[in-house]
């Protein structure tokens, strides 16, 4: 589904490399976790994959379903089925969740030559997805993330994911700042969305999230590269010994 080959990236207009040759393959039905210390480039990876204009790919390719998406705009990638749950969801006063999602859903449907939903059909569809994050109807009519608590913002990301039904989702630090109740709701939501037809990549600093969403693969990212891959035991090792220990071992 996703194949990242030797990906190098810089902040647009700057010299310093943030990604220094990332290789990653994600197949349908898989859940991956990318772990790493602050500044390792893991959040950057999720932004580069979803097409953030702030970054420039200087070398390497990103293939999605066999198609080279390295130079595509973010919206085109979304049309193909890529999704990014933001670490810091953006507040957009004046536009409701419903308005954004209807526009997004129908734009993606058009791009894929699928049927658009009229407002009434869409309302029903939206309401049917609310239970995934245990939110009430009024959530739909609130301005996007405006005045939301940290937990509500993260829930909203997962709600958007449920509605847009992407093939591949990057969850960027979705667990950060969540209390235990909110973490349960969010991870339950992700587990409900996960299916043999889609794939999920979680970006996280801590092992905590992985207690709730079980990854098939765990990767450790350091200094702009994936330095080690394995299964859940790798996360447990990190939890026990910390990133410093691993860095020493690798050196």
């Amino acid at each position: 589904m996703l194949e990242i080959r030797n990906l190098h990236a810089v902040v647009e207009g700057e010299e310093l490399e943030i990604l220094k040759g990332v290789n990653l393959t994600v197949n349908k039905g898989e859940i991956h976790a990318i772990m790493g210390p602050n500044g390792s480039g893991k959040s950057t990876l999720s932004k580069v994959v979803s097409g953030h204009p702030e970054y420039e790919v200087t070398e390497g390719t990103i293939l999605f379903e066999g198609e080279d998406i390295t130079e595509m705009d973010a919206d085109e990638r979304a049309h193909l089925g890529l999704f990014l749950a933001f670490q810091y969801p953006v507040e957009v006063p004046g536009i409701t969740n419903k308005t954004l999602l209807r526009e997004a859903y129908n734009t993606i449907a058009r791009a894929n030559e699928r049927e658009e939903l009229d407002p009434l059909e869409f309302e029903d569809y939206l309401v049917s997805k609310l239970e995934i994050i245990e939110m009430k109807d009024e959530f739909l009519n609130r301005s996007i993330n405006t005045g939301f608590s940290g937990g509500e913002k993260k829930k909203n990301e997962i709600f958007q994911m449920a509605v847009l039904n992407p093939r591949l989702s990057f969850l960027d630090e979705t667990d950060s700042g969540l209390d235990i109740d909110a973490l349960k709701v969010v991870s339950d939501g992700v587990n409900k969305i996960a299916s043999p037809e889609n794939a999920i990549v979680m970006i996280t600093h801590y092992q905590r999230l992985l207690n709730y969403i079980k990854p098939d693969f765990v990767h450790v990212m350091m200094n702009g590269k994936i330095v080690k891959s394995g299964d859940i035991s790798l996360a447990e090792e990190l939890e026990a010994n910390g990133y410093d220990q691993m860095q020493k071992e690798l050196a």
Partner: protein
Amino acid sequence: MSSVSTKELIHAYVQLPGVLRENFKELRSQAKENLDTCAFTTKKDEEWRFTDLKSITSNKFESVDTGIAQADLELDEYHLPEAMSSRLVFIDGNFSPSHSAIEGMPDGVIVGNINDFPEHEQLRSHLGTMTNYEDDVFVPLNDVNFQDGTFIFVPKETVIEQPIHILNVFTHRNNPHFVTPRVLFVGEMYSKATIIEEHIGLSDNVYLNVPVNEFRLYSGAHVHHARIQRDSKNASHISRPVAMLDAHAEYHSYTICLGSKLFRNEPRVIQNAEEVDFTVDGLVLIDGEQIADTHSIMDHRFSHGNSHQLHKVVVNDQAHSIFNGKIFVAKDAQKIDSFQENRNLLISDTGKVNTKPQLEIFADDVRCSHGATIGQLQDEEVFYLQSRGLTEQKSRELLVYAFALESVESMAVKSVEELLLKEVIAYTNRD
């Protein structure tokens, strides 16, 4: 910019056949005198410092013949469903009875052409009394030249449920001309009304629109006043709307600027007794080479007044927005609570914004504050929407729409709100 000499401006006006009609003779002859002597001088340059008046000074404007308005003009599309029996229509300044419809008003209410009530006591005692604009040619120009106009009188404790729609239509005329719409509103104690004043250019011709409004609110009177400016894109519009409020009166005004090449709006609200409440909101959406200039005054002369101003501006292309918001609080006017906010969104690299809050406070127990921001769309916001599948263009449109929406939502009349939403969408979709 360089100053505009008196002669340049006056030149255009004094050659106009200022028909001094029998009605309002005193007002007109006084104004004529002012027009002859008043100077658009360099000492007032500060007030016009940023405003390019080329679109006025490069033309000579003729007056429009008085007479019958074009009865066959098709204007249905501009009607508001809420005001089907409370509409006054003026075509190039002439009252059009056939397009107007006033029915079912409560007892004692007057909504009509100012010329049909020249001897009305309220009209005689208020017309021309509130518009003391200093060293000004535009009010006297209107005083001298207005032919028809709106007179609204709402008696004590009377509520007009339906909004009153004052529709000023500008048709195509070959020669540059000027029109001087006039409104006098008098609301007696505890009366209530909603006024929608609209200016629409049907063509893209050159004209100068100089409306003067006087709103006199007695104690406890409530007025909502929406002003929608959709003049021809080559028109100039110089507005003088004044409201004077007695105790417990409430006046809420919203001005929406969409059209015209040059727009200069000088709203003034005067607190004439204790305990009043008013808003002077605005929304400006401009592009191309449009200039939109708001010079407002919130004039607190007595204690216990609340006032609020939210002036929102979106600037595209080479357009230029100017804002000078004055809050005056007189020496003995204590316990004033006044807030002014000017928020500007620049969506091009070549647009221009000048903003200047101006607080002159002589009382010591007041709360007055102001804020001005000039911003651009944030890349992170655009990316967020784009990552959800919206094109970059659509994302930007939606963000501009959201910025403008706050003002539109305060409209008291549903169809006006819808109309403005359409205008906002049209604006964000312009190339």
